[in-house]
């Protein structure tokens, strides 16, 4: 039976893993390769590396670390950040990444999703969506350039419309980052994820809000997501992956044991 995936996310800035609260005030957590290796050995099912500065700086992700990760990691990993063209993506995939994830560049030029699908296949095209619940309008809205708070801006897209659009254009997976929850460890945005799940026929990964092991059980059971992504709870040692997996198995969720 297909297992639900536990996905540590490593936000990368200048070759270091960092973590901010609600996308701000980034603090350095450590070097990429040893952290990645530790997570793979601990039982992570997949890793995501976001170069959070790339989209905002107009840079492409520094390539050398992708290859250093590919050398030591024996689980799938995805690279995100500043991938604007088929050529950018091709270089990262050649260095050993299994998937590439695009976010702001897809909003700027949605055709990129189709181009990547045609060039590399649907399976490696992940679209990351930063979704913010606007209390005033009562709606979920898509934001872009979230790596730099000075450039972060609301787009014209409602999250539900953008989810439909990226699927229609050939995305293979969606990572839905619920910005209101990000970094505050109060639980995943179950209501939003349930709503998006109903609109999403491709794998859906929950992101933003994990604070306890129970939050993982809830998001798998209540929102039926394919994977749950988290950063700070793993980086700070609040949740140990092996213990998390044991609990999820005990809770009756299909999980790959370590």
């Amino acid at each position, binding site marked *: 039976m*297909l297992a639900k995936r536990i996905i540590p996310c490593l936000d990368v800035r200048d070759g270091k893993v960092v973590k901010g609260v609600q996308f701000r005030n980034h603090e350095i957590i450590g070097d990429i390769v040893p952290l990645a290796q530790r997570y793979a050995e601990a039982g992570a099912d997949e890793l995501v590396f976001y170069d959070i500065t790339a989209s905002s700086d107009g840079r492409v992700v520094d390539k050398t670390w992708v290859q250093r990760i590919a050398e030591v990691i*024996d689980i799938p990993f995805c690279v995100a950040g500043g991938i604007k063209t088929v050529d950018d993506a091709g270089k990262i995939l050649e260095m050993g990444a299994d998937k590439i994830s695009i976010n702001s560049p897809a909003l700027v030029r949605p055709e990129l999703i189709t181009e990547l699908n045609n060039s590399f*296949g*649907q399976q*490696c095209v992940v679209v990351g969506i930063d979704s913010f619940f606007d209390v005033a309008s009562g709606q979920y809205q898509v934001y872009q350039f979230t790596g730099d708070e000075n450039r972060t801006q609301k787009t014209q897209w409602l999250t539900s419309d953008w989810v439909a659009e990226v699927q229609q254009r050939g995305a293979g*997976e969606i990572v839905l980052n619920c910005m209101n929850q990000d970094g505050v460890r109060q639980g995943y945005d179950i209501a939003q994820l349930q709503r998006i799940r109903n609109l999403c026929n491709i794998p859906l990964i929950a992101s933003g809000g994990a604070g306890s092991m129970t939050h993982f059980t809830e998001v798998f059971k209540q929102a039926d997501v394919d994977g749950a992504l988290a950063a700070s709870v793993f980086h700070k040692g609040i949740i140990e992956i092996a213990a998390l997996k044991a609990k999820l198995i005990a809770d009756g969720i299909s999980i790959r*044991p370590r």
Partner: protein
Amino acid sequence: MAQLVIVDTGCANISSVYFAIKRLGVDAVISHNAKIIKAAAKVILPGVGTAHNAMAKLQQAELISTLQSLQQPLLGICLGMQMLNRDSMEGNVACLNLINGDVLPLQSAGLRLPHMGWNTLCDISSHPLMTGFTEQDYLYFVHSFAVAPSQYSLANCEYGTKFAAVIGNNNVIGAQFHPERSGKTGARLLHNFLEWQL
């Protein structure tokens, strides 16, 4: 010592396959040179993307007849596995026809596609490539097309319906999953391939 050659299909997972083999202590050669491939002790055919593009690349490199004539062990991975078959409905393209099977859209009975993530095996045969595998082992799959279970199945997998996870015919082996990205269980398949004597 004769070499292990990874066919340079121009596809994306070549370096991951190279590094996975290197972690097992073997330094492989990546090549699209027919002479080097023919002289190899063993050959790996990786592949990611669409069957149509990948077969076009093999054709451009004039490697189709080379791969068809190999007598040494040949391992196809993911799309590389699919290309070992007669044809693929992904772009309606003729493939290498080393194993009598057809690559068809995965009939997932309503389960989400692509089939992406870690899944278990069933119907595991006693073939040397499957040594040490159990139904509790998880392997990493990413695909929307598949080959139906057949007499060539060395192991199957189930996702809405059963499909072939590993196929084999004489010197030719194919794995639908990514052994290079399947942790220790994936490394076991690569190890078994390196140890395999025809």
